[in-house]
């Protein structure tokens, strides 16, 4: 004799489970109000906000251009850093010349001690120009801007907030925190020398790249804006992140690491905030609440603010 009762019980459990799973998949969203959607729109920099001469098109504050001569025999590499520029011309074995020069608007002009001259004009992501006096020859060249990955790390003016910005070409992410309760993830764009990042709950960062540093204003979601400075920083500086489950609570931990290895971070466990655990900068390992986890460095093209 068969009974239907147990099968009905089983069926109703499956149906209820399906409803909850469907509800979670459709309705549940990560924390934070829809303001985070602003992360995709980039405010247009105003003329007064730029540090460069008004009206002039300008070369990027930081850029690396790589290309070739028209005859394809000479490789051309040009680095721009603020008002300074450096270039390297290479035609193969023992035929290499280094040049130094300056940037004025969108024009670069470089010379070498041996009398080689390079002049170029930046047009968006490309540079076109002429090389003269290289192995007795003159020729035109073209070069394209390389995607530059960089980390800028620093502090707010009062030293309260620590931040790290990771750039990848024209994209950037940042993490700013005070190591206890204030923190913000930011995301946005790099256009020319202007950095515009936004986060959830009104958090934002605007900065200008000048030479080897970034200066600007950072607003974590407390609403208080603070000026900051950050310098172009080598390893181990960077933005680090871990998303783990601690005792059944969704946990997101962020660290801003300065080039001297100083690390400041906040762990958001469920809805409570606490100082982040110590991060092993050699392999990203850390322990929290008895568990061992690994954090990853965040690249400038990563998504850190939920759309």
């Amino acid at each position, binding site marked *: 004799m068969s009974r239907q009762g147990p099968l009905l019980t089983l069926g109703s459990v499956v149906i209820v489970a399906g409803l909850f799973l469907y509800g979670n998949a459709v309705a549940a969203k990560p924390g934070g109000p829809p303001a985070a959607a602003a992360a995709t729109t980039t405010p247009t920099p105003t003329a007064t906000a730029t540090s460069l001469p008004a009206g002039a098109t300008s070369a990027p504050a930081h850029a690396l251009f790589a290309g070739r001569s028209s005859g394809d025999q000479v490789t051309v590499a040009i680095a721009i850093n603020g008002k300074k520029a450096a270039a390297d011309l290479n035609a193969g074995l023992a035929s290499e010349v280094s040049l130094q020069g300056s940037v004025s608007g969108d024009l670069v002009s470089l010379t070498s001690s041996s009398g080689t001259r390079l002049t170029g004009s930046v047009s968006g992501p490309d540079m076109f120009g002429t090389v003269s006096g290289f192995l007795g020859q003159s020729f035109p060249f073209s070069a394209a801007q390389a995607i530059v990955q960089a980390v800028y790390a620093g502090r707010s003016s009062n030293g309260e907030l620590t931040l790290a910005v990771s750039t990848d070409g024209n994209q950037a992410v940042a993490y700013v925190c005070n190591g206890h309760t204030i923190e913000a993830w930011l995301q946005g764009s790099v256009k020319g020398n202007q950095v515009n990042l936004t986060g959830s709950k009104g958090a934002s960062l605007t900065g200008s790249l000048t030479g080897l540093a970034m200066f600007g204003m950072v607003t974590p979601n407390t609403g208080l804006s603070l000026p900051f400075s950050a310098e172009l920083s080598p390893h181990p500086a960077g933005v680090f992140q871990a998303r783990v*489950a601690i005792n059944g609570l969704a946990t997101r931990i962020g660290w801003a690491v300065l080039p001297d290895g100083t690390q400041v971070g906040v762990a958001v466990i*469920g809805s409570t905030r606490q100082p982040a655990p110590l991060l092993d900068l050699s392999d990203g390992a850390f322990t929290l609440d008895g568990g061992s986890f690994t954090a990853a460095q965040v690249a400038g093209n990563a998504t850190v603010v939920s759309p």
Partner: protein
Amino acid sequence: MTTQPVTVRQAPDQYAKPLLIALLSGCAVALVLGLYGGLHHPTHYALDIAGFSSPLYAKAWLTTAAVVFAVVQLGTGIRISRPDAPHGIATVHRWSGRIAILLTVPVIIHCLYALGFQTYSIRVLIHSVLGCIFYGAFVAKMLSLVNRETMPKWVIPVLGGVVFVSLVGLWATSALWLFTTKGVHG
């Protein structure tokens, strides 16, 4: 003379197939839950249940309520097949079980969807394994009940015992741990 051994051999066969189906189904459910929890990338967020300070406490209280009904299950289950069982004990047993299992459904969905199968500490590992065993044993028990006249006598009590012990284990590694470390509140 030839029919006699046939009937003797048929006796075990009568329940072997339904029992095998029930047990294998339970194993499959446990395996699927474990694989889903391990392979599905945890979302780290899920629907909140209103009225609690955090999803963790909502889950802890739902599990605690399920354990209370499970104790009723134990009390009624050990008397249910006695000849002198009180009238209506089967109804109480069935409905307390249905309520208990339905209370655990929002919890397991949150566990699986938002967190997944985790192994970072002994408590968490035991909890993850017990979660799979619990639902596997539950499915095996339900399927065994469909043809319970053909089952050996020990099947239902053993499966019921596994369901009860794994639920209490789940509660001890989650809700009890939460209440003792973070305090008892809503």
